[in-house]
């Protein structure tokens, strides 16, 4: 590079800086004296993050299991509903209540029913 040569010819590459006598001989001691001592760390048992996730998953599993066991299951509820329905049907008396209700709903009286039956 031409410009680099220009600087080199004009100024050179010499290091123009100097240090006090014996500076580098004392540098290491000077630096080491300024460093704090390491405090022994309190021993803490650290686990890898994957173990924390595993522990959390197991806890969550236990909570879910506890909730599931204490909750009445859906099959139990269904069985209960069916049993109640059967019981209700059984409790009904075998009379014409439903027949009369159906006839009223269809606005049929006895005569109409007989007329209808006589056609067959």
């Amino acid at each position, binding site marked *: 590079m031409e410009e680099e040569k220009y600087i080199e010819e004009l100024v050179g590459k010499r*290091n*123009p*800086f100097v240090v*006090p006598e014996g500076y580098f001989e004392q*540098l*290491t001691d000077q630096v080491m004296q300024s460093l704090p001592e390491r405090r022994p760390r309190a021993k803490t048992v650290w686990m890898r993050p994957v173990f924390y996730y595993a522990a959390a998953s197991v806890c969550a599993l236990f909570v879910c299991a506890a909730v599931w066991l204490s909750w009445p299951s859906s099959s139990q509820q269904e069985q209960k509903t069916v049993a109640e329905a059967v019981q209700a049907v059984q409790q009904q008396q075998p009379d014409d209540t439903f027949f009369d209700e159906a006839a009223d709903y269809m606005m049929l009286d006895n005569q109409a029913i007989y007329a209808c039956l006589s056609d067959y």
Partner: protein
Amino acid sequence: MEKYDDQLILQMLMNPETQRRAFEACVRQYGEQLYWQVRKIVLTHDDANDVLQNSFLKAWNGLGSFQGESKVFTWLSRIAINESLDFLRRNKQRLAASEVLSTPTGDGSKSGERIVDRLVADPYFDGSETEALLQEAIASLPDVQRTVFQLRYFDEMKYNDISHLLGTSEGALKASYHIAVKKITEFFKARD
């Protein structure tokens, strides 16, 4: 420790029992080299000494985060260069100097001359006025250009090594160096 072995030092640095002894070996091995890197950025001996001490202190305190992913010298050098640039930012010396290059033929030279005067009066500066002017021109460059120029021009460091040191691509570093050289050349030509 008779012979410095980077791999062995790295293992010793990881061990709390031996890390202080290993760190001392690092200071002994790289202290001078790091000093010159810092000195070329901050210019005066007292500032360079302060920055270097802080850099080693920072490295010592941050030893736990150093996992040996780079060479020990690269790690220390990175800390030292960052500390040097932080120091400059704090002192705003660079802002005063940058006025010179932004207006090379204007009045901005006044603030730049202070660096030259300071260097010439410094008992630990053994250079000519032209060498002091070069330092002034370098000091006025932006951080990356300034660091690349120092490492490449004076230390003749390879772009690949500078790239590891600064975490910048080789292409970007070459461009920065080229711009830095151009600006410094213009700086001198404007004074002729």
